[in-house]
């Protein structure tokens, strides 16, 4: 190597310093993380021992996870239907014996999820603009909406459901409101993040033409964030469909309730049938979501 240029000498110094600090940071974070991990796994019982009875009747102490691994499939196995090739038709009919009821409940569930998502989207959409740092007219509005969104999102759907059942009485109404309110919070955060990542130049373009705050949002932000909004919304819709067990809790029926009944009556094969029904629904929503999003992104012409 020839004589080092001053720039390289300076670099060597900087590099050594940067390396040292990077090493320190990474060591510190690894240690911290390892501590969190160990603590959490200890609380979570990952290191626990357990006594098990061996097939020969002896009791031994074993690592819990090791002892449990062979039994992992037990519950699943019970949910499998007995299907024979020769009698496939009747076996499947037996398996899905309640399909009429389930279909009805599925529709009910989807409608409830739809309504809840609808309410959640309206609330989240309207509030996401004042809750975005780059759009809020002032700090007070920003903080007020943000706190509100935080509270409604922090309280789980189940808890809102219990509260609303107390307030609005029993029935889908309480469930819809509960899921809707929670969705407002969860979506509001995601929407406002999308808003914050939007290109502010477009907003400036509107502002410079004399547009009011509403115009700036309507023309500067909304067209940019619509694909995000749609994809978040459909994802939320899927989650809300799955949240139907909570609606079941407040007496609105839905597939979740059917799952609970099947569980408590030990109708195991019903569980796998219900799983398939929900699975198909989730796939449908997932596929539609993909399609719609791509269409909106690729839309030429008038936009939104």
């Amino acid at each position, binding site marked *: 190597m020839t004589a080092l240029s001053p720039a390289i000498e300076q670099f060597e110094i900087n590099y050594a310093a940067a390396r040292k600090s990077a090493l320190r940071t990474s060591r510190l974070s690894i240690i911290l993380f390892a501590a969190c991990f160990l603590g959490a796994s200890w609380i979570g019982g990952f290191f626990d021992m357990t006594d098990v009875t061996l097939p020969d009747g002896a009791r031994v102490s074993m690592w819990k996870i090791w002892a449990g691994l062979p039994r992992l499939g037990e519950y699943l196995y019970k949910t499998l239907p007995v299907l024979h090739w020769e009698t496939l038709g009747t076996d499947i009919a037996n398996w899905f014996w309640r399909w009429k009821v389930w279909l009805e409940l599925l529709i009910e569930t989807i409608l409830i999820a739809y309504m809840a998502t609808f309410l959640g989207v309206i609330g989240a959409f309207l509030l996401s603009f004042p809750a975005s740092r780059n759009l809020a007219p002032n700090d007070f509005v920003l903080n007020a909406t943000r706190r509100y969104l935080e509270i409604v999102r922090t309280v789980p759907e189940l808890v809102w459901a219990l509260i609303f059942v107390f307030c609005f009485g029993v029935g889908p109404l309480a469930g819809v409101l509960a899921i809707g309110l929670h969705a407002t919070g969860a979506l509001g955060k995601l929407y406002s993040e999308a808003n914050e990542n939007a*290109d502010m*130049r*477009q907003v*400036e*373009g*509107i*502002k*410079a*033409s*004399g*547009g*009011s705050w*509403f*115009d700036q949002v*309507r*023309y*500067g932000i909304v*067209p*940019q964030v*619509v694909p995000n909004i749609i994809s978040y919304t459909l994802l939320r819709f899927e989650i809300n469909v799955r949240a139907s067990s909570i609606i079941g809790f407040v007496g609105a029926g839905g597939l979740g309730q059917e799952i609970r009944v099947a569980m408590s009556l030990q109708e195991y094969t019903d569980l796998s049938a219900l799983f398939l029904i929900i699975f198909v629904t989730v796939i449908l929503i997932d596929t539609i979501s993909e399609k719609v999003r791509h269409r909106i992104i690729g*839309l*030429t*012409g*008038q*936009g*939104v």
Partner: protein
Amino acid sequence: MLVVEQLSKVFGDLTAVDGVSLAIPKGQMVGVIGRSGAGKSTLLRMINRLTDPTRGSIDNEGQDVTALKGHDLRLWRASCAMIFQQFNLIDRMDVLTNVMVGRIAHTGFARSMLRSFTDQDRVRAIQALDRLDLVPQALQRAGTLSGGQQQRVAIAKALVQNPSIMLADEPIASLDPANAVRVMEALRSINRTDGLTVLVNLHTLDTARSYCDRIVAMKDGRVHFDGAPRALTTEKVRAIYGTDDLSDEINEAVTSTSLQTGSCRPQRQAVGT
């Protein structure tokens, strides 16, 4: 007459614009040049009131612009149209809507939220697009246009605002030379035909020389030169831009986007072929 008096803008510790005073007669085409960070954009943004001045006043035809608020402020913004380097169009909406947005200050709340502009606005927008040869693209999404087309859409939008002043912040910096020529020609034609005052920030000296009646050079937030293009000598240019790291003489041509108009073209032509 647009009169800017002792206008300053302070960002934290930094005085981006420092006591600028200018009087710009109606119908003049003014080029503002200066190094990056000299305060050119900030000056234009203050005139449009996108940025509020820290000190100083802006007065247009006797109207105190710095005091405007609410709806009057929005009307002022509409009457001094602004064009940006990155066009700042609504990428996802069609060209026509983008142009009609120029009418937004005069559109009611409900109508603007529903995106239902009047037929009159529509006609106006189509006429403006026609003027800039963009009618065929009217229903295309703005984001799918080329840079030069987008900048012309921005100009069309500015036109339908029916402005008395046109502010352009480095309108050609993102464009390739061919489109840059188109856009500068459009600005000049507006200035000449409609008699609009045009203030245009430029990085490229030769463009400023070719198109502007008057050049204002800024340095560190202050006006460092103000006069006819002819009066801008090499020494003055060197003082404005400071020394460059490329060569020890200021090589003006390097910063050029070579919009070869006027006297320069024939010579280049000769070299090229």
